C-alpha cells in the first residue's frame, strides 16, 4: 500500500496501509503520543483500499479489510477515512484477537481496581468512560475490555474514544479542542468525533488491574438502579464477546470467575452528570 503507519495500542500492534494519504496523516497526528514503531512486526494488517479502480480517484470510496475482513462491509467515503481506519482496527481485534477474552465494554481504573461498563451502542458507555477519564479515573478503553484468561485482570485497549452525536458537545466542552479529532458528519452512525485519551491513559496502556465493579449503563431513562442475576450477566457478556466461542473452555472458566467475583448493577440515567454521581456512589458502596 502506498501510505502506511504502524501503531501500538495496548497489547496489539497494527500495520495500517491506505491507498490515500489523508487517513494515515490523521491517524499519525491523533495517535502522536502512542508508540509508532516503523520497524515492528505487527499482529494485524489493516487495509484501506479503493472499492474499485475508478473509486480511487473519482468519489473516492474505501473498502475496509485486512487480515480479517467482511466481504459485505459497507464502503465508506474518503472524508470518513479516519473512522474507516478505526473500524479496520476494531475488525481485526473482534475477529482475530485470541490472547484475551474480548468484552465489548468500556473500562476505567482507580486505586488499582477496574470499573467495567458494557452495553449496546448508544448506552452511554463510551461517554461515561471518557468523562470519568477526565475526573480522576484512568481511562482504559471505550470499545474492548480485555479479560486475561489466567489472572482475571482487565487489560487496557485505549484507542481514540469514538463520540457520537450529542456526546460530542458534552465531552469536547470538557477536554478542549486540542484533544479532539475532526468532525465526521453524517456517518452511518450519525456524527462522530474522536477524542485523544489523556497522557496517563496512554503511558500506562500496558498495565492491567483486577475488575471490581460491572455496570450495565443505559442513557436516556429516568434515574434507576437494578440488581442483575448472575445467569443474565453471564449470557449478556457472552453476547458482548466476539471471541468467547473461539477461545473455548479457558474463556468459560475466566468468564465464570468474573461473573462470580465482580459485583454488578444496571443503571439508567438521564444525563452524564447524574450518571457520574451514581457511578461514584456505587463505587464507594460496592467496589
Amino acid at each position, binding site marked *: *500500500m502506498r501510505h502506511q503507519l504502524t501503531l501500538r495500542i495496548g497489547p496489539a*500492534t497494527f*500495520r495500517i*496501509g491506505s491507498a490515500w494519504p489523508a487517513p494515515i496523516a490523521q491517524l499519525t497526528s491523533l495517535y502522536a503520543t502512542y508508540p509508532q514503531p516503523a*520497524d*515492528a*512486526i*505487527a*499482529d494485524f*494488517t489493516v*487495509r484501506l*483500499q479503493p472499492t474499485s479502480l475508478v473509486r480511487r480517484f473519482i468519489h473516492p470510496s474505501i473498502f475496509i479489510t*485486512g*487480515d*480479517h475482513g467482511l*466481504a459485505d462491509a459497507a464502503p465508506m467515503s474518503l472524508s470518513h477515512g479516519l473512522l474507516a481506519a478505526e473500524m479496520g482496527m476494531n475488525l481485526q481485534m473482534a475477529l482475530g484477537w*485470541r*490472547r484475551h477474552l474480548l468484552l465489548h465494554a468500556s473500562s476505567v481504573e482507580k486505586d488499582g481496581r477496574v470499573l467495567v461498563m458494557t452495553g449496546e451502542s448508544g448506552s452511554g458507555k463510551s461517554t461515561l468512560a471518557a468523562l470519568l477519564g477526565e475526573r480522576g479515573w484512568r481511562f482504559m478503553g471505550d470499545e474492548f475490555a480485555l479479560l486475561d484468561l489466567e489472572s482475571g485482570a482487565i487489560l487496557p485497549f485505549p484507542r481514540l474514544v469514538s463520540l457520537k452525536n450529542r456526546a460530542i458537545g458534552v465531552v469536547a466542552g470538557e477536554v478542549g479542542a486540542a484533544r479532539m479529532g475532526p468532525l465526521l458528519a453524517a456517518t452511518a452512525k450519525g456524527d462522530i468525533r474522536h477524542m485523544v485519551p489523556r497522557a496517563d491513559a496512554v503511558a500506562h496502556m500496558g498495565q492491567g488491574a483486577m475488575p471490581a465493579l460491572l455496570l450495565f449503563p443505559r442513557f436516556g431513562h429516568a434515574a434507576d438502579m437494578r440488581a442483575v442475576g448472575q445467569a443474565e450477566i453471564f449470557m449478556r457478556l457472552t453476547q458482548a464477546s466476539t471471541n468467547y466461542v*473461539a477461545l*473455548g473452555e479457558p474463556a468459560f472458566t475466566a468468564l465464570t470467575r468474573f461473573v462470580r467475583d465482580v459485583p454488578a448493577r444496571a443503571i439508567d440515567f438521564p444525563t452524564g452528570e447524574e450518571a457520574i454521581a451514581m457511578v461514584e456512589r456505587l463505587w464507594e458502596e460496592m467496589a
Partner: protein
Amino acid sequence: MSAALLVRTLRDPASVAALDASGWNSLIAAARAERLIGTLAFRLADVTVPPAVMPILSDARADAAREARQALWEADRAAQALGPLGVRVVLLKGTAYAAAGLKARQGRFIGDLDILVPVEAMAAVEQALIVAGWEWVKDDPYDDAYYRQWMHELPPMIHATRDRMIDVHHTILPLTARQTPDAAAMIADAMPLGDGLYVLSPEDRVVHAVAHMLADGDLQGGLRNLWDIHHLLADTEPNILEARAARHGLGFHVRQAQRLAAALYGSGARLTLWDRLIRARLLARNGWGRETRKALVFAFFLRSHWLRMPPLMLARHLWTKWRKGHRPQ
C-alpha cells in the same frame, strides 16, 4: 511477491532466519490471506522466530486445533444423523485429513463439512439431515434448481443451532464438467474409520484434491490445495495412482499437480507453459495480503465457468446472475 515468500518458507522453514520485520509482516499477511497461517505455524514450530511472531503462531496453532475439534464433532453429528440409513458416509477434504490423522491436517484451516454419499441415497440423506436440524442456506429458487440439476452436491445446508455448514456430494466434479469421475468406485474402495464414516483411499484422495483444484474452480485457495496434494502424494503408490487417475479421466490433471507440487513445495520440476500460467496465478498475492495480477486472476475466474458449463448455458447463467446484481469480486 509475498505468496512466493510464503511458498519458500513452507518449503524451507529455516529460511526465515534472513527475514526482517517487513519480511515477517509480508509473510504473515500472505499466509493469512491464503488461509495457510496455521500450516505455517506448524512448519515453524521448531524454528527460532522473533518474540513478536511467537504469539501470532501459537494463536494460529490453537485456532487450527479448535477447527479440527469442531470439524470432528460435526462429522460425529452427521454420522449420528445418517447412521440409520446404513449408507457409506465418506468424509472429504480437511475433516477427512483430521479424522484419518494425515500429515496434511497439521494446522489446516477447516471450513464446511464435506461428505460424499452414493447418488441413489441423496434424497434419504437430505431428509435425514433436515430431521436432525440442518436447513437450507440459499433461499434463491434459481440457485437451488441450479444445484440440483447441474452440480455434484446438494445446495449447502447449515445446522440451525451449531451454525456449521455441510456440503453433501454425490460425485467430485459438477455434472457439466468434461470429466466424469467414477464416484461409485471411490465409495466402494473407501476405507472405514468406524461409526459408519469412511475416507477415500490414498490415491482417490489425491484425485479428488486435484479435481477440485485444477479441473474445477478458479484457483482461489490454490496454494493451500496444492499443499494438501503435496502431502497426500507421499501416501500413494505411483502405479496405482496413475491407473486410478486414468480411470477417473483425470490423468492429465494429476500429472500436472505432481509437477506443480514438486516445483513449489518439493525439489523442483520442469514446468510446461500452462503450468507456469497456473503458478503465476497461484502466486498472485502481495505483502499486504492483497490479490495482484488482476487480469490473470479474472481470466481464471472466467475459465472456472467455462469448465463448468457449455457456452450457451454459461451465457444464460451469467445473464441471470447479472440481473440479480451479482458482480465478480
